[in-house]
């Protein structure tokens, strides 16, 4: 277990960096707000300067002067390459197959990478009514890679979600093909506050790929409500590099708004 002396980074920063590392140069990325936007922007400011970021509201390659707080945030308008409409981004870019990476967070995520943002409990008599799909369902269906952000506990991770808002591998291998989804799409990883889970394409199930500094394989297994397989080459997640941290703190988020995620349990 490696050190994080003097807490030189916080967990949300590490998680954002994990997301950033999934992005390749020239990728077209649909981002929302919070972690996803932070991740994509870290990538753009480090190893993927030619990545194109877009928001589902219609904005492409925005140049916000502060972190956007919604996909319709005013700071996304001035300086963007295109201020179009929902149909441009969700139809013309996403459905037409141009989006490489989508970022989603889920109130509930299961072992097949299915995401629930609709309701906890029965749909018709919900214990808790959540926002709904928004852009999540088409992003999870149509982006080449989907990255999922979630809290690592028995409530947020589930053997089976209460409601599949956004399909991952649904009920296992072949399910996406059966529905005629675009080939070679689907969840790439689940980035939690404890670990990075990746997917075994032969089973459609998540496995432990790396544990964050400060976590252990045993802790992660105990926090996961299904029998989580562990990669033979499981390793410790690389902490944020000095360059990544510099970009986060000096360029993207000087007011360190990312700290609000600590209050939401991302520790």
């Amino acid at each position: 277990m490696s050190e994080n002396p003097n807490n030189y980074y916080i967990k949300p920063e590490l998680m954002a960096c994990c997301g950033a590392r999934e992005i390749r140069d020239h990728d077209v990325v649909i981002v929302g707000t919070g972690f996803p936007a932070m991740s994509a922007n870290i990538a753009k400011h480090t190893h993927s300067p030619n990545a194109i970021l877009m928001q589902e509201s219609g904005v492409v390659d925005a140049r916000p002067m502060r972190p956007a707080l919604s996909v319709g945030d005013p700071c996304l308008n001035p300086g963007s390459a295109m201020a179009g409409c929902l149909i441009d981004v969700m139809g013309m870019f996403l459905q037409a197959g141009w989006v490489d990476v989508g970022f989603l967070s889920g109130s509930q995520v299961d072992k097949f990478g299915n995401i629930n943002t609709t309701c906890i409990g029965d749909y018709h008599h919900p214990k808790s009514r959540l926002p709904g799909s928004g852009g999540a369902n088409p992003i999870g269906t149509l982006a080449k890679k989907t990255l999922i952000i979630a809290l690592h506990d028995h409530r947020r991770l589930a053997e089976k979600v209460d409601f599949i808002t956004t399909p991952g591998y649904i009920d296992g291998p072949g399910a996406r093909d059966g529905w005629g989804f675009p080939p070679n799409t689907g969840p790439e990883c689940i980035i939690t506050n404890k670990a990075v889970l990746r997917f075994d394409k032969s089973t459609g199930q998540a496995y432990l790929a790396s544990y964050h500094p400060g976590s252990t394989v045993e802790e992660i297994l105990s926090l996961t409500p299904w029998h989580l397989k562990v990669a033979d080459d499981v390793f410790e997640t690389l902490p944020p590099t000095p360059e990544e941290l510099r970009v986060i703190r000096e360029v993207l988020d000087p007011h360190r708004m990312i700290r609000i995620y600590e209050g939401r349990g991302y520790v």
Partner: protein
Amino acid sequence: MTKVMTTREAVSKFVADGDMVYIGGYICRPPFAAVHEIIRQRKKDLTVVRSNAADDFDMMIGAGVVSRFIGTFLSLGVYGLGRCYRRSMEKGVPHKIDIEEYTNLSLPLMLMAGSLGMSFVPVNDMKGSDLLNVSSFMGDGKYKIIDSPFDGRPTVLVPALRPDVAIIHVQQADETGNAQIWGIGGDCKAGANAAKKVIVSCERIVDRDVIGKDPSRTIVPSFKVAAVVEEPFGAHPGYTPGFYDVDFSLGFLYQQASNTVEGFEAFLEEWVYGVADRGAYIAHYIDRFGYAAYQKLMAAFDYSYPVSYAY
């Protein structure tokens, strides 16, 4: 022929109880003045529709004017879940609304289909999800699955939507209704043009010649428009590019208030029922928070380069 009137007149004349109402804008350009007026006039039994919904829809649900919602998403953004929406869905307060759920791909395309006179449109999402396993007032008309006659693959078709009335807020319009926007579009053009008639709320009414100086900005032509309302600051606490910023502090106030039914009612009393119109609302805002707070919302100047259409 001028269609200029007040928001009160426009809502009174063109929004009927039981109507299906498209309301444009998400954070960007929500027609909040008209939303307040709908609540103030205690409209009933509306079906409301838009992809992505925020505090405006939450407030209408809490105020009891909504019976049905065709949507994709409702939250208060940074302030989390919509409190009135949750109370309606979880506890039936003030009543449970019926909700038909789509996505930010399928719903805009359903509006686009309505705007283009298509009766349905194929979409590639929702498959394999529980969105195909639930439906409400649209019953089995929510979607159909066919084998594509071109390639045999299973294809989801969703129906076109033709709202009775659309309400949008735009930067500028002329007095006949030619309406122009710039900045984030959302599903505004599709939604407005899908409707049988349009109420255009705008920051400023301009001369027809101003429209003609840059006609590519027009999203709705006059002949679709029933009413034009000049309503400066009409999207507040949302924003209008080039005019004013989003007001996070009022958004927070709303979230705090709407945590309880009592708080929500008090909020409505203060900001909706207790003010006669948008003018009184702004006056109250300045009265309560000071002119500096109001002025702070005003947009910076950063103008685009003019272009020419001449030949």
